């Protein structure tokens, strides 16, 4: 009989280690792991079940977006930004379009600004529902919350498909506005979806918020202090869960966000439960923004007529544009040398920088908590590895 499995190498139980202290078990929650939301790897050394050391390892989805962008025209890189954070393609487009507009000084017409806000807030809705679903999946509630979340996501993806043509890769924004105007009947359909959303949120909260198991497993887990969050450059819902009032829609007031009344939810413990609750509350705020934006959507041009679609050459110089993407501050830093191709195309990935403090949050907790803490950070590998 051939050897079914090689005998484990000679056990290293040397007598010297017999003074009762435990040895560390090196295990890697590797690239292919149900809890890592993609190809993300963590080398964890465990003392029994508690985490002693955690080293995140990236690069398994490094698709060289920035090198490819250096050989593409400015328009050619737009569909590539869909594939950065492949849950929210429209906010990626908006960040890229915004930084090119600051680089070239393009003015965006009114209607296009409203369309941008409407589609971006719809993206935020579907991203946060998916996150809540995946977080519950990580916690063991496999199936039910994710089914509810994806049922709502499909409705929003139908809206994107009838507007831009693709479910996930919308490629919707151009420098100076949007690519295509609303088809007939789209606005009514969108209004019904947005009107039905708060009822779904109540259903979702009734299903999850009071759940004792959820509270027992997430409250007090992965606490992130305010100072460490700021110093480590954490942005987005994770930062606001630690109580820092920093939301680019209110700070930078990019686009026309200053015209809408909405509040910024802030957490005070900074643990996994707060991050989940922040995202649920942010969904309610996004619904408010959507209602206001769809109510006073003006008529008019959807694209600035002066900017050329093809052979677009901004003047030499550099610009850094950033927006509040559902994951955090997504920024594009473009250096142009006057040719149709950007000289340097840099993406500021919120997911990667939010992972800086993953080890600080996970030390001392056991392996099951590491899975939930990673789930609450909400990373998407396309954006982390670019």
């Amino acid at each position: 009989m051939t050897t079914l499995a090689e005998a484990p190498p000679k056990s290293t139980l040397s007598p010297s280690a017999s003074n009762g202290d435990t040895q560390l078990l090196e295990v890697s929650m590797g690239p292919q792991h149900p809890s890592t939301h993609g190809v993300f790897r963590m080398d964890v050394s465990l003392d029994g079940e508690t985490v002693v050391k955690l080293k995140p390892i990236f690069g398994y989805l490094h698709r060289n977006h920035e090198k490819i962008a250096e050989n593409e025209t400015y328009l050619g890189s737009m569909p590539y930004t869909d594939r950065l954070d492949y849950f929210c393609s429209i906010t990626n487009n908006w960040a890229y379009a915004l930084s090119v507009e600051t680089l070239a000084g393009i003015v965006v017409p009114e209607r296009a600004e409203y369309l941008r806000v409407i589609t971006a807030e719809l993206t935020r809705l579907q991203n946060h529902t998916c996150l809540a679903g995946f977080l519950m999946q990580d916690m063991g509630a496999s199936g039910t919350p994710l089914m509810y979340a994806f049922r709502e996501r499909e409705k929003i993806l139908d809206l994107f498909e009838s507007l831009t043509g693709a479910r996930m890769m919308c490629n919707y924004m151009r420098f100076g506005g949007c690519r295509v105007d609303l088809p007939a009947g789209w606005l009514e359909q969108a209004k019904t979806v947005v009107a039905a959303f708060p009822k779904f949120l109540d259903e979702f909260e009734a299903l999850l918020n009071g759940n004792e198991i959820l509270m027992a497993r997430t409250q007090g887990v992965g606490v992130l202090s305010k100072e460490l969050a700021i110093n480590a450059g954490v942005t987005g819902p994770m930062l606001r869960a630690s109580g820092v009032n920093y939301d680019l829609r209110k700070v930078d007031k990019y686009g026309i966000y200053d015209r809408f009344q909405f509040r910024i939810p802030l957490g005070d413990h900074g643990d996994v439960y707060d991050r989940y609750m922040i995202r649920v509350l942010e969904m309610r705020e996004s619904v408010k923004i959507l209602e206001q934006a769809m109510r006073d959507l003006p008529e008019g041009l959807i694209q600035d007529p002066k900017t050329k679609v093809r052979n677009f050459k901004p003047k030499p110089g550099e610009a850094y544009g950033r927006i509040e993407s559902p994951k955090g501050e997504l920024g594009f830093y473009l250096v142009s040398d006057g040719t149709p191709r950007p000289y340097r195309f840099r993406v500021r990935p919120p997911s990667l920088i939010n992972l800086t403090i993953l080890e600080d949050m996970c030390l001392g907790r056991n392996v099951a908590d590491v899975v939930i803490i990673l789930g609450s950070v909400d990373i998407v590998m396309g954006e982390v590895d670019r």
Partner: protein
Amino acid sequence: MTLEPLKLELEEKVPGCGLEIISNPSPSAQHSLLIDPEHAVAVAMYLRDAAHLRFDYCSNVTGIDWPAPNDAGKAKLKDMEEDLEQDEADCATAGYLEVVYHLYSMEKKHGPVILRMRTCDRGLRVHLPSLVSVWRSADFQEREIFDLFGVIFDGHPDLRRILMWDEYTDHPMRRDYVEPDDYEYEPTAHDEVLRKTMNHYAK
């Protein structure tokens, strides 16, 4: 946040640091401040801790490769087959590698201050001070610049390759990086890709 008063204040607070304002010709008007590597940490510490500045959030750290102007054009159009050992040697180190820091203040909510640091040349062992001790958000981004550009950051706690595998020896985001050629099946090869395919078939 105009740069002139900030420059004067920094020169007064951090003696001997050579500051220079790099103007940005594009309409975004985001001018930047070139600081010399020796006083980088001191300037950064001051920017973060000064009461009225409070730049406690380093949003973005970017590496840019500026080969010397003459060879930048040449690097792009240079035909792969010609061997240019002599030219290769000196033009590889001409020019400089640059690291750009975008700083914001979460407390005071005011706009970007952009710091730039430049290395002496583009060789393989170029050093710059790491600002991880001031802002922890620069940790992974500096490791990425080390991985893709080859800038060694002194004082970085854990300078390893972050995106490429550890046995990899090149720095792929540099302008003169030559890709390994595996172009067996390129049915729609034209211009740039066509040249690489022909090189592959020529071998």
